[in-house]
């Protein structure tokens, strides 16, 4: 092991010397910038990260196996695409990004163990990873103890902030409030029926949504129901919905339950064209399993849809499909995962260093103009400023953009008055 490491250090050095000698005649022709792009390793890496003169190593930590592989596959694909694109543009501070992929296997202790392995053994400069809140909560103490940098892609319940994490997805208020405002105004909605899977994210999200409906919109929540993760029978709750006749059904059901819920809703004769339904848990990825015909007409509140019409997205979608196949779809989280490597690159360049402390300090204010969702910027609290958008599901499994907030919405992971 140590022999290899020595070789790895020596041979690039020798090559560099040779190259340097060969380059002497041409040196006057080079633009000055090329020196600035590849500063000495000792200057940009003072904490012993896996950075050489030509390469920098990052980790990708998602579930490629187990029950979460359904969701996390898209994130892995997006991160690999971003890394490839960054490398094609010359890498970060003149160094190509190399990645080590570890499998969290949908098991939270495994996530923590693999995160430790990436930080302690592989000395990665950053980790793109985690998906569920449970996996993030398992990894967080490891990131803080060994001072790593995590780029976390999923929209989540908020109530968290760490020096060692950049949250590239939306926290709950960013996702929910604007959507509720819109549907209350547009549909004159006064009564809401909440239905969610029974774990922390839907419960926290619904708590925030309930406060907003009752205190701000002056509406009424006529039902709030939770079903165990993996439930496949929703006929009873659908009957309750029919009985209470809410203006809006607001859902955060996840995973396989999602498919069952929409299929049974449709079978029970609830026409989503007439009965407004707002979901914060269905992206293009989920519709693949649900089937467009079962969910057409429903509204989803996200920050990104594959159908977004802007130049960044028009370049992103074909690039993604070229790499991963014509049939793949791109959901909200996949796009947020794509932001991770880019934001890290921009932050490293702003800080002029790979050091985690410097990156954490330099992150606030970093802007990414090439984001497929449009412009994003990192907030002081390490979350992203981003727009909230409402889309309507179509038969072909895509969303049609119906509404977007005029300005970026400020991330507020600890919302006052909503807890």
């Amino acid at each position, binding site marked *: 092991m140590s022999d290899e490491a020595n070789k790895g250090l020596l041979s690039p050095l020798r090559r560099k010397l040779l190259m340097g000698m060969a380059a002497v005649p041409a040196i006057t022709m080079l633009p000055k910038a090329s020196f600035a792009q590849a500063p000495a390793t000792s200057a940009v890496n003072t904490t012993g990260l896996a950075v050489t003169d030509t390469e920098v190593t990052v980790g990708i930590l998602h579930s490629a196996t187990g029950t979460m592989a359904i969701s996390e596959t898209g994130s892995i694909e997006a991160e690999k695409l971003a890394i490839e694109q960054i490398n094609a543009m010359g890498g970060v501070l003149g160094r190509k990004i190399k990645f080590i992929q570890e499998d969290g296997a949908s098991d939270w202790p495994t996530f923590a163990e693999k995160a430790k392995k990436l930080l302690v053994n592989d000395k990665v400069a950053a980790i793109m990873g985690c998906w569920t809140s449970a996996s993030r909560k398992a990894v967080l103490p490891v990131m803080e103890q060994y001072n790593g940098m995590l780029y976390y892609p999923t929209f989540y319940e908020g109530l968290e902030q760490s020096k060692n994490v950049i949250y590239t997805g939306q926290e709950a208020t960013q996702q929910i409030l604007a959507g509720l405002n819109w549907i209350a105004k547009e549909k004159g909605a006064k009564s809401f029926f909440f239905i969610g899977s029974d774990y922390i994210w839907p419960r926290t999200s619904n708590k925030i949504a309930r406060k907003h409906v009752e205190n701000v919109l002056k509406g009424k929540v006529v039902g709030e129901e939770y079903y165990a993760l993996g439930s496949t029978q929703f006929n009873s709750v659908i009957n309750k919905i029919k009985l209470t006749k809410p203006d809006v059904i607001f859902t955060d059901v996840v995973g*396989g339950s999602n498919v*069952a819920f929409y*299929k049974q809703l449709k079978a029970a004769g609830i026409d989503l064209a007439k009965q407004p339904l707002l979901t914060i848990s269905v992206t293009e*990825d989920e519709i*693949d399993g649900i*089937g467009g015909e079962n969910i057409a007409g429903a509204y989803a509140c996200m920050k990104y849809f594959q159908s977004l019409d802007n130049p960044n997205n028009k370049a992103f979608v074909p690039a993604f499909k070229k790499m991963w196949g014509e049939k793949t779809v791109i959901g909200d989280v996949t796009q947020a995962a794509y932001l991770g490597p880019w934001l890290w690159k921009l932050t490293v360049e702003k800080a002029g260093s790979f050091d985690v402390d410097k990156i954490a300090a330099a992150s606030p204010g970093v802007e990414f103009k090439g984001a497929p969702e449009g412009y994003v910027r990192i907030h002081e609290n390490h979350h992203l400023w981003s727009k909230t958008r409402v889309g309507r599901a179509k038969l072909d499994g895509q969303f049609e953009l119906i509404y977007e907030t005029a300005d970026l919405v400020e991330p507020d992971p600890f919302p006052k008055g909503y807890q």
Partner: protein
Amino acid sequence: MFGDYSLGDLGSIFVMQGFAGLILFSVYVLMALGLAIIFGQMGVINMAHGEFMILGAYVTWMTSNLFQTYMPGLFGGYFFLAMILAFLASGALGMVVEWVLIRHLYKRPLDTLLATWGLSLMLQQAYRSVFGAREVGVELPQWMLGSLHVTDSIEVPINGVFVMCLTVLITVGVAYVLYMSRWGRQVRAVVQNRIMAGAVGINTEKVDRYTFGLGCGIAGVAGSAFTMIGSTGPTSGQLYIVDTFLVVVFGGAASLIGTIASAFSISQTQSTLEFFMSGSMAKVLTLLAVVGILMLRPQGLFALKVRK
């Protein structure tokens, strides 16, 4: 909670809720039948039951794609062919598994639990490698979507009715095969006394293989039918396995009537409770009731002698 509703509203809700309970009942029977045969008749704890169901679901998905591409005109009827193919595919896989794995473990029933659990992991990863990690959407013919409009407030889901009919059909079929046919008599003879059955000339190995195949085949049909109401992904089988075991154990192993009675009581309890409280609480209360009854009657609702 009923103060605000008219009598008509309430009446139709009770009807709808009754249907919801019946649909849940059919779903439980359908998913438990295959397991009841394997667990009840052979004493094998098949943890891979859910994966056999999902194989049926994937076969349905492939058949649907095939029809869409090559015979769009016949798409309306593909589901029937898909169910037959699902039965054959899961049944065949079941027989192979019995030959390779299970037959060596008959004398060690607890080991079958581990072996079939390992098998379920292997099958999940196989599905993931072959079909991809993402869920697939099975497209249904138009006539199977939506609901029958009875009155303004009573609507009966067509796929629910379909599952009910299918359940009745398969239950009657299984009952006929087990209790009326010559082969069924052989199965029961082997269950009651393997050595004597062998001594009178019954090929017990063959009976075992076909019984296991039949159980898995029925799981395949159930999986095929559940594409109408649930998801199809590599790990979707896991969604069903707990409920399935609950029904079979509560009913008392080795008893078809027990399975049906237990499916009925669990589904009715659950769907009634679900209506009056939240889904999670209903599940908790149902499980508590089941645990309580099993403490009083460890052998389940209806118990027969099982192979020692």
